[in-house]
């Protein structure tokens, strides 16, 4: 038991709260005979699911929620993840019985509202990307990437070209190289120049007839718009290669600059970032992909098409790469993103403007106390380095992150991108008011001060959370990844 007076009540596991014979749910039990199941098929030992009454179940999840920090709790400037406010009306809309209880195999004529919503979302997304054709199927950004690479493969195969290499910058998110491998491509890395743009000389030497394409985040993971993007596009297109846009940072440029206009041929969106699907402790997301006309025939099946006043799912796509996910995509996510875009309308650009304004404000107010590796205006996020604190006082980006927790703020992304040592990647998003930004500035400045005067405050942080720092090495070494009941190892105090 936690000590009396702790603000964090105990949180036993569901299995520890379980008592044999207790139960919450009573499913309907039809008064019918039960046919016999053959022996090998019938379950021999019941699964050890937890046995709790409803009151205790509700308390359990309430306790766990209280130990979880979300955007609703406070400022969450997790770079690259766009932790913006999630409008509450979205939950109402996605929960309408006409959506929530709609079976995905329902006949098209009995799902016209859903299909229309998807079709309209496709059109709005196409306008934002500046590319004409959209598939909503991919489940998240990473799957969008993989889908994009598969589209490249299909496109080149259709043209009879053999290309086996994908180029990514050294600032790329880990999913980019991982997707390249999963798609069966080879990876080639290109350097970043002193202003944070792609190094054009390095690039020119690497693009050739084996190059299938580029994967690029723009603005980059440094939060910088690539000033040479037009030249980059020229280099690839001249080599007959394609450009893939990782849309994780689209929040910076909606209505300002469109990937299609920048020269990208394939784009994914992260609906959970830019278009406000709640992140749900890890997901769900949505990763639609937009493409040029030339690539449209290869899009996954089915797509949503309009015929006169009616909408339908089109499964008849002979050149399609096939299906990448079940059904037509994560529909509930579409409801939210559609509602989000409709709430802004043509003024959606303001979203990006404010996101960029908020980030630059933080940058301006912090760059004298933390190192700034690329001294430029940023876009919707920026990367600072704590190397000055490390050099001066022996505290790291991790320590700064942990100390922020004591100020009631979720830490930014740290140690990414890899090209910046002791990186602190900060993305405030557009929904934060100036007061929250100022709180963050005050905390970051106070922490820099503390690093000099009382570094132990950082080194021992956090102080106000339900646990202190964890032994992560031990977690990986012993890999206790499920509860083991009677055989569960006694961790506490041990080792």
């Amino acid at each position: 038991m936690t000590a009396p007076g702790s603000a964090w009540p105990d949180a036993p596991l569901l299995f520890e709260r379980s008592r044999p014979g207790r139960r919450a749910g009573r499913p309907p039990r039809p008064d019918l005979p039960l046919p016999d199941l053959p022996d090998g098929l019938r379950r021999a030992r019941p699964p050890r699911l937890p046995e709790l009454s409803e009151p205790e179940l509700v308390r359990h999840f309430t306790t766990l929620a209280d130990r979880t920090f979300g955007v609703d709790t406070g400022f969450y400037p997790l770079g690259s993840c766009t932790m913006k406010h999630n409008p509450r009306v979205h939950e109402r809309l996605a929960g309408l019985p006409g959506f929530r209880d709609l079976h995905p195999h329902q006949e098209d004529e009995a799902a016209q509202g859903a299909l229309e919503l998807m079709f309209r979302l496709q059109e709005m997304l196409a306008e934002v990307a500046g590319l004409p054709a959209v598939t909503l199927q991919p489940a998240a950004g990473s799957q969008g990437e993989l889908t994009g690479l598969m589209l490249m493969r299909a496109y080149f195969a259709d043209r009879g070209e053999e290309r086996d290499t994908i180029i990514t910058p050294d600032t790329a998110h880990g999913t980019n190289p991982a997707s390249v491998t999963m798609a069966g491509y080879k990876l080639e890395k290109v350097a970043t120049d002193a202003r944070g743009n792609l190094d054009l000389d390095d690039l020119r030497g690497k693009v050739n007839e084996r190059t299938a394409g580029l994967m690029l985040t723009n603005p980059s993971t440094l939060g910088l718009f690539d000033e040479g993007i037009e030249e980059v596009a020229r280099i690839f297109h001249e080599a007959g290669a394609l450009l893939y846009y990782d849309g994780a940072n689209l929040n910076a440029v909606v209505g300002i600059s469109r990937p299609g206009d920048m020269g990208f041929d394939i784009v994914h969106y992260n609906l959970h970032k830019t278009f406000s699907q709640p992140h749900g402790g890890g997901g769900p997301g949505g990763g639609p992909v937009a493409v040029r006309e030339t690539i449209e025939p290869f899009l996954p099946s089915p797509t949503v098409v309009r015929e006169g006043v009616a909408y339908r799912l089109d499964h008849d796509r002979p050149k399609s790469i096939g299906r990448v996910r079940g059904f037509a995509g994560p529909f509930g996510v579409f409801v939210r993103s559609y509602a989000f875009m409709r709430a802004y309308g043509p003024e959606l650009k303001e979203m990006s403007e404010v996101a960029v304004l908020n980030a630059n404000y933080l940058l301006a107010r912090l760059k004298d106390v933390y190192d700034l590796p690329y001294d430029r205006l940023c876009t919707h996020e920026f990367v600072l380095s704590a190397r000055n604190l490390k050099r001066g006082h022996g505290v790291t980006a991790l320590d700064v992150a942990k100390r922020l927790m004591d100020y009631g703020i979720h830490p930014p992304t740290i140690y990414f991108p890899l090209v910046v040592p002791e990186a602190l990647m900060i993305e405030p998003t557009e929904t934060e008011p100036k007061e929250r930004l100022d709180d963050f500035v005050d905390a970051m400045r106070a922490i820099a001060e503390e690093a000099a005067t009382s570094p132990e405050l950082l080194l021992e942080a956090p102080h106000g959370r339900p646990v202190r720092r964890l032994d992560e090495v031990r977690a990986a070494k012993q890999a206790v990844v499920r509860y083991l009941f009677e055989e569960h190892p006694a961790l506490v105090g041990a080792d």
Partner: protein
Amino acid sequence: MSCGYLSLTDADREEMLAAIGVSSVDELFEQVPPGVRLDRALDLPPALGEADLVRHVEELASRNVHTGAELSFLGAGIYDHYVPSVADVVLSRGEFLTAYTPYQPEMSQGVLQAIFEYQTVICELTGMDVANASGYDGCTVAADACFVVKHAVPGRSKIVLAETLSPQVRQVVKTYAPGFGLEVVEVPHDGGTTDPERIAEAAADAAAVLFQQPNFLGCLEPAPELAHAAADAGALAIAHVDPMTLGVLEAPGEYGCSIALGEGQAAGNWPSYGGPHYGFLAAKSDFVRRMPGRIVGETVDLDGRRAFVLTLQTREQHIRREKATSNITTNQTLLALAGLATLSWLGPDGLREVGEACLALTHYAREQVALEPAFEALSFKEVAFRTPIPAREVVRRARERGVHPGYALGRDYEGMDDVLLVALTEKRTVEDVDRLAEVLAEVCS
């Protein structure tokens, strides 16, 4: 600000621009080359305030016929099981909704613990040692498993799929396989189930065999025999299972499978026109370091207090990059936690009772409906009937009578245009089945 999701006042804006040292927001965008700037407003439909937005979206929703608006026997992968209200506790709590992947464990002990509990529940259901924090859906976890297999069974590059495995799952595996350098072969069914001998043959040089239990046609496969046929041939046996049947059906881990996976929707998610739901993926301990996706492990903090943390991260893209076991980042945690809440609400007895209700209703339907069952094998949760007119026409006519009688298997299987797949969850009653029988009798005569 034009939208209530934005928070800056004009005064804030001025102060902030001054602090930055620019005179307008436009200046911030000078880094964008003029040639790629959009010089017009976006062509999007007009903005809607919240009340107008709700009115508009409600109108769209009203044009769908949902499972509450007709008596529905649709299944074929997505099932109308009861989603208990405790799931709402998870789904409506702002902290769960608006948190992301728990990279900073001290901020996220709640969601980490819940994932750990979810992993345990999945392992218990499937008889496995490790489960990840979720995959996108029941299709993509099958592709993920193929990527595990590719590395786990060196020298073999063939994947065998039973034809009775969900068509969508097979399609996704086939989309992914070329990138993995894997070849896919399919084994046709014999009278609705898969013949272990044919699996034994196909598995001879295969890395893995995937089958589904109960299979897509509603039939119970001889799953242990299939698993053993695969394993004996040196291939890994992989079962695609339905969590809501696992209170009654044996756990794949108990009959020789190395990996178990499936679509989680039936346990705790609404149909939602196909998503978001969660795919689960579990394996024996041999594969723990090849698993894709997030995994939460137990550890202690500096004071020796139990705590939870994302672990085995050297498998993952943000550490291993092109050598990662998967590219997955955002997953389906929230939906998986709704599954956890649902399965915990049921408990072992409730889960068994759900399975028994489905089984009993399936057999009652098989008796009551005056159509010939398409397959002799034992059906569970779904039963296929042969229809005297095309099944799609049966669907059309029955829907006019307020009953959605099921899924026309001809959508996926050649030669099955006259086969109708009827799903029975515990939410259907004896009277519902009687009504179905009555309507099918009417429209088929």
